[in-house]
């Protein structure tokens, strides 16, 4: 990666594919118009970490007069080419509504729908469209192609989870370096096989069993007719391994659901103790339940220097209270988001399961299977 120097502005887009709608590659230019650059993102993030130069010979048409500026540390600017060839250049948050409409159009190619879900962090949507694409490949090319495709998706996700769960920057580098020996595959019956023997498991803060459960929840059984829940996570926080409270809050604000925002803030307390507690004290939500929940958590999180186990117990005790305080028709979503973001902490996981077992709420029933799968009640084979 090179230093671009000076102010940069998006001046055009390279197309990845010939069809529309689809994402493109935004191309930036210096003020002097002499050099072209593409944005480079931090892994699993929407923050620009630098720029990479692009040879001019590779460009066809670059004529945008009023493209947005881009800078290191700023939000990544996506390019999306609409069905009438119109170009949209903006952050993923600003494009979210438009992409949502595109997602719901029958005519949108499946591969574009999958890319939209990947960029929006909608894991349920990813699963749905990945399954459809896999079926499409199986019909047109046979099972070997479909299997290869699905395996490539589960491998990429496996590495992503391991990378996000790395305990340090050095551990993250080791995961990245050994990706080709971190094996993951899924067979036709949906059985997932993982092999992480190429790394020291102390390098990741999640046990392989939890990762297997998470992958199972994302890759097994896509035939569900339950409503799709959007999802974001803390990975968009700037400087992921050592974020500030502000960076955590910025990541949390990306979630459109208050139940998830609360779950993300609780996770930040577990993963980044000091910064997470600071974020919970600083953050103010627009929604009533979230504010009530955070007020409760602020009172309970005054204990500084608590161990992970102690923090886990505090948050576990908060689960039934949050369940009671949430809107009756949103309780399933609350437990779902708590499961997704806090399943790797045993005390909290047990508290979620207890709340799930005690509940007969209709909304909870709708998500019960998803929650149980996320929490690992369904077994998967692993090496």
């Amino acid at each position, binding site marked *: 990666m090179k230093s671009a120097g000076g102010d940069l502005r998006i001046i055009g887009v390279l197309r990845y594919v010939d069809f529309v709608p689809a994402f493109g590659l935004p191309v930036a230019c210096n003020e002097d118009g002499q050099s072209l650059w593409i944005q480079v993102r931090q892994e699993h993030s929407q923050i620009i970490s630098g720029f990479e130069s692009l040879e001019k010979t590779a460009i066809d048409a670059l004529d945008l007069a009023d493209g947005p500026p881009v800078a290191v540390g700023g939000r990544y600017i996506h390019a999306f080419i609409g069905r009438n060839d119109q170009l949209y250049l903006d952050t993923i948050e600003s494009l979210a509504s438009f992409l949502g409409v595109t997602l719901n159009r029958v005519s949108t190619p499946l591969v574009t729908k999958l890319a939209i879900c990947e960029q929006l962090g909608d894991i349920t949507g990813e699963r749905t469209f990945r399954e459809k694409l896999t079926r499409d490949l199986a019909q047109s090319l046979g099972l070997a192609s479909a299997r290869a495709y699905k395996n*490539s998706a589960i491998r990429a996700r496996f590495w992503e989870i391991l990378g996000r769960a790395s305990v340090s920057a050095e551990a993250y580098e080791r995961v990245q370096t050994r990706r080709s020996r971190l094996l993951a595959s899924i067979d036709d019956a949906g059985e997932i096989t993982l092999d992480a023997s190429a790394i020291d498991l102390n390098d990741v803060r999640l046990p392989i069993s939890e990762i297997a459960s998470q992958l199972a929840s994302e890759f097994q059984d896509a035939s569900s007719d339950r409503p799709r829940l959007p999802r974001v996570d803390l990975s968009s926080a700037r400087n992921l391994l050592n974020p500030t409270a502000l960076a955590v809050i910025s990541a949390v604000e990306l979630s459109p659901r208050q139940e998830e925002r609360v779950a993300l803030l609780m996770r930040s307390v577990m993963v980044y103790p000091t910064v997470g507690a600071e974020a919970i004290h600083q953050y103010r939500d627009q929604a009533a339940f979230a504010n009530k929940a955070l007020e409760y958590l602020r009172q309970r999180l005054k204990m500084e220097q608590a161990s992970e186990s102690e923090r886990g117990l505090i948050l576990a005790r908060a689960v039934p209270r949050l369940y009671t305080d949430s809107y009756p028709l949103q309780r399933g979503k609350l437990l779902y988001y708590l499961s997704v973001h806090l399943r790797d902490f045993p005390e909290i996981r047990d508290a979620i399961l207890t709340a799930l077992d005690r509940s007969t709420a209709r909304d909870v029933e709708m998500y019960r299977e998803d929650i149980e799968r996320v929490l690992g009640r369904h077994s998967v084979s692993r090496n």
Partner: protein
Amino acid sequence: MPLTHIAKGLIAKDIIREGKIEPKDCPVFARPLAYFFYGRPAYRVAGDGAIRDAATCPFAFIFEPNTIERAQAIHAFDTGAFHNRMYNHVLMEEMQIDDFSLERESRRVNRLVYCVFRNLSNYYDGDTSKIPEPNQIAAKGDFLAQAYIKLLRAEGRNEADDRICTIEVTLGEPLSLDGNLMAIVVPDMLWNDSEKTNWIAEVEKGGVDILPYRFSIGRESGHYHALIEQEIRHYYTKRELI
């Protein structure tokens, strides 16, 4: 094991349209050669930057194991890296590329793999942790064998250095895809519900397995290379080639 050939999308398209891999002028041996690797997809098509489009995405061609019988030369490692003096931290200046030639004897390849890596699986993974001490498998006076084993066992290796432990096979004649190509690993942006690229479809009609991998926006080349490496490993395992 099969032979692999990795190419950027732009080059892969030419290969498929022409139906063969043509030898190209080689600065190392000063004659036209086509390069392959034994089993492993060790060749890297790009640097560390983000993959920009289909033209720069890596494709992997997998050829029938008996293709090695046509080899003009077989070497114990990537000769390009040797030529670029990347092994100089272990190998002496006086050692020449051809000192590490396995000649054109395909049986020597597996003998080397079993002697050094113990099995094909370890070789494919580039797992050097099981390689014995040089003195255990090579005579003390056999300086070349000792140097080769020391090179493989050298500390501080990283992912990009897996070419050290990958056997290189060069052909002096064009290699036709017809009857020799088993499978091709391609990015899904060229093979999905809206785009079924004609030139890939032509290969598929000939009975070649098309193995698409997921292209995700903004990933660096190492990500795709690792996906390809695992998919080929899976492919070999299913066909009991490993």
